Structure formats: C-alpha cells, structure tokens
C-alpha cells in the first residue's frame, strides 16, 4: 500500500486537518466531535443540511460543506458510518431554528446511526427531517436486500437542496426538492480494481488484470457481476443501459449527467468515458443539459466510475446553477 499518510489509524483526522487548513475561509473543524461545518455556520436562520457517512469516499461529504451546499458533515471512520454523538454534534452546530435535514444514504450503518441520533435528539424536542438517498440501480428494489444504496444522487441532492436552503426556502420546500431529486436520479457503477483501506494495508479483494466488476457501490464491497474488461464505449453502453432502464426518462428529457471516478481514475479517463456516454445519450434522443465529471463519490484509490443521471426540471436546473463554494464544487462565487 503506497499512499500519503502518517499512521493508518489517523488518516481521517489528518485529512480533515489538511482540508480545513486549505479552506479556512469556508470550513471549521470541531476536532473533539469530528464535525466539519461552514466557517459562517448559523450566521443567519436557514434550513440546515447535515450529512455524514463512512470516510474514504471524499470529497463526499466533507468536500461539499460550504455556502450553497451542506451546513455540516460528520465523517466516520474509513467505510464506517459516523456515530450518533457525532451526528448530534453536527446537527446542533448548525441548528438556527429554521429546520434541520439529514441527508442519509441508504446503508444499514448510516440509517441506524442517524436513526439513533434522531431518537436521542427527540428527547430534547429537536426534530429532524430525513431525506433518504437510494439511487443505485445495481440492487433490486425489493425486500431481499438492505435496499438500494445511496450513491451519486447524494451530490445532486446536496447541491440542489443546498441552493434552495441558501436562498431561504422553508423546511418543507427544501425537503420536497431534495426528495424530488432523489426520486428522479439513478446510478450504476463499474469498478476496475479493488481498494486498500489504510488499516487493512492490502486490497479488500483481488481482481484479475482483465476483469471488471459491474454494480459495485462504495466502501470497497465487490460488485454484482464480474465480467471481462471492455473498451470504454462498451462500458459506457452498459452504464447507460442500466441507468436508463430504471430511470425511464421522458423522451427528449433534459438530464444532469454526473460521471464520478472512484478515486484512482484520473479525470482524463473519465472525460474519455464521458465522450462515449454523451454519444449514447444523443443516440437515445436525450439531452445532457448539465455535466459534472470528476472524482466526486469515491472509494479510496479504487479505479472505476459511476454514472448518475437526473431528469431535470426548471426548478432543479436553476438551483443547480446557483452559486456554490465548497472545497470540491465551486462556481458563481
């Protein structure tokens, strides 16, 4: 395992220290509770958006804290959801009385720990809306599994709901647009390699040089099918087929297309793959109205990519274009 780190057990702490050192104008770190919040948090009443999950998926969520997006993030240990105390501290830190939203990816640990945090906060009369993200079409939407994972849609919900909260929408309105985005977004992922959690020191599993994994999630779990490595245009077709079959966008729809790397795939490869995705969308009569390519929802240094499509309406589009200033996403300010 070759990586920039000090002690394997300290990677999350050390990462957060570096992140706030690089973005002092945007971020503050509560080291004791491991809570990252906006530098200007709680400056004025607004609906607060809080998210958290296992670390190792950066920039999710830590890189999305800042004006126009999240108010606070509570990163857990590597691939392990945060604990209730952390979630509570994050929530309290940004509570202005205007309403609270937990953006929760549908992973058992995350759901349980956010659930416990909410139960505890309820004793103090604090109530929180939950927006559940479950956009992963690799998992069947039935009771035979823990349910669809929350993947790339998380970024889109955080950006769009974040913009709604920023302009002063009330709790019901922010929660509604968040749920609408979550409902109209789907993701499918492909992994080319495994990844190496620092404390483990070796890959989670081994793949042959000519194999790839279809339908992986985040956090290093293996995928649904292991198949032969294919050229980019075939991979793009697989990703598109899976996502479109489930999303079923209206003919001629305007789409927000996010193609995220899994951490170890350079942006140039993602753009190459996006070129094939774009060609496929055009062939399907769909319009990529907004495009975001980069390493946004990752699993450490895993190579691979995840395609997320969101069927846009005018309201989402305007909120997507609104200014944002975070470590990982910035425009308009």
């Amino acid at each position, binding site marked *: 395992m070759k990586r920039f780190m000090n002690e394997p057990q300290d990677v999350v702490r050390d990462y957060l220290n570096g992140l706030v050192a690089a973005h002092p104008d945007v971020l503050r770190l509560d080291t004791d509770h491991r809570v990252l919040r906006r530098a200007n948090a709680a400056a004025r009443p607004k609906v607060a958006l809080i998210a958290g999950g*296992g670390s190792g998926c950066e920039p999710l969520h830590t890189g999305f804290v800042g004006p126009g997006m999240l108010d606070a993030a509570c990163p*857990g*240990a*590597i*691939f*392990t*959801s*945060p*604990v*209730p*105390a952390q979630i509570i501290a994050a929530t309290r830190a940004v509570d202005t009385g205007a309403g609270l939203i937990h953006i929760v990816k549908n*992973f*058992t*640990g995350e759901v*349980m*720990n956010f*659930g*416990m945090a909410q139960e505890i906060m309820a004793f103090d009369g604090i109530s929180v809306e939950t927006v559940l993200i479950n956009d992963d079409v*690799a*998992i069947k939407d039935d*009771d*035979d*599994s*823990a349910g669809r*994972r929350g993947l790339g849609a998380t970024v889109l919900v955080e950006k769009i709901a974040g913009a709604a909260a920023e302009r002063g929408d009330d709790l019901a309105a922010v929660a509604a647009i968040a749920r609408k985005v979550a409902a109209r977004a789907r993701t499918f992922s492909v992994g080319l390699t495994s990844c190496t*959690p620092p*404390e*483990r020191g070796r890959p*989670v*599993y081994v793949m042959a040089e000519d194999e790839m994994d279809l*339908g992986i*999630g985040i*956090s*290093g*779990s*293996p*995928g*649904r099918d292991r198949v032969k490595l294919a050229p980019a245009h075939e991979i793009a077709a697989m990703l598109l087929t899976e996502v479109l079959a489930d999303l079923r966008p209206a003919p001629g729809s305007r789409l927000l297309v996010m193609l995220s790397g899994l951490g170890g795939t350079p942006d140039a490869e993602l753009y190459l793959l996006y070129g094939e995705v774009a060609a496929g969308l055009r062939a399907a009569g769909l319009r990529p109205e907004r495009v975001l390519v980069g390493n946004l929802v990752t699993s450490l240094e895993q190579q691979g990519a995840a395609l997320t499509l969101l069927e846009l309406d005018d309201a989402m589009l305007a909120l997507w274009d609104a200014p944002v200033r975070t470590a990982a996403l910035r425009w308009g300010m």
Partner: protein
Amino acid sequence: MASDITTEHLILWLTAFARNVAAGRDGLNELDAATGDADHGTNLYRGTQAFSNMIAQSADHGTPGAFLKAVGLVIVGSVGGSSGALYGTIFLRMAATVGPQVAAIDGTVMANALRAAVQGILDRGRARAGDKTMFDALDPAARAFDGAIASGQGVAAAWQAARIAAEVGAAATAAMRARRGKSSYVGDKSIGIADPGAASVALLIASAAEVMAHI
C-alpha cells in the same frame, strides 16, 4: 446468590470479549472482505478498545444494569457502522431489562435480557431468521439460554448451551444468502462464507461462557 451475575462477572466477560476480538480481528475482517467491506473486526476492535479504556479508568462501575448501559453507550459512541448500532443496542436493551437498581442478575433476568437484545436487533435492522446476520447467532443463543434456565439449570450451564447454539447458528450462516447488511448487495455470491456479525456474536457468547463457567 452464588450463581448470580455481578458487575465483576460482566467486566470479566467484556474483558474476555476484548481479548477474543483482538485475536479474531483479522479473521472477522476477512469474513467481511468476502462480501462486505472488510472492516467488521476493525470496527469491533475500536469498540472493545473503548470499553477497555472505560473499565481501566474507574474502579467502581456501579450496578450490572448501569455497567451494561455504559458499555452500550461506549459502543454506540465509538464503533459506528451497522455493528456499532447493533452491538450498542444489544447492551442498551440488556441494561433496560436488568434495570439500574439490582445488584446481581439471576438466570431468569439474564434470559430476559438476552431476549430483549434479540428484539433490539430486530427493531433496528428488521432482519428475519435466515437473512444471514448476527440475528442468526444471537437468537438461537438467547433461546438456548432461556431453555436451560427454564429447565432448572444454572447460569454457567445456560451460557454453555447458549455458546453451542451461537456457534452452530453462526456456522449455519455460511449456507445462507444475505438479505440484510452490505453482504446482501452481492446476492447469491454471499453463499458459502459465514456472516462476520454472526461470528462475532458467537465470540461474545463464548466469552461469557468462558468467564462464567464456574459461577
């Protein structure tokens, strides 16, 4: 009262569990690596380290109920992930059943506490029998403990029965298809290897049986 479980017994239990988790950490991670994210051992180890610190920091840990609650909170506060919530719930539900006042737990109360822990797992995770989770080790263990006490056996014998049931239950998860937790994402590929949470619950029960063998 000689066969009742005191706070001292509970401390020995958790100390033994901490030792077993330290020894079994890599093995639990390997089980998790096969279908999940390879961290179940590391997660539990974070928890057992935290309660080892807690135990070391004070001489007086209060009543059994108070101690179980403290353990539950320490786990919930340090582990994270599915197992943090689930293991935390196991201890918090046991604490609630035992109550803050009693000085020692008799066999019947312990049986009730274990059954409450099982219910806690169900409340949190909505697993069913055969879904390949820690439920499949904890539920048979609680039933075996209960049965032993109901048939007049002592706490030590009840733990032995629970241990065997947990180990058999954990081993049986190998043949199951995961329907809860991260392993459920890989569908049929989860068949053939035991569930890490069931394996660690078997360690938990075995640790109790070990330290309360002569109670």
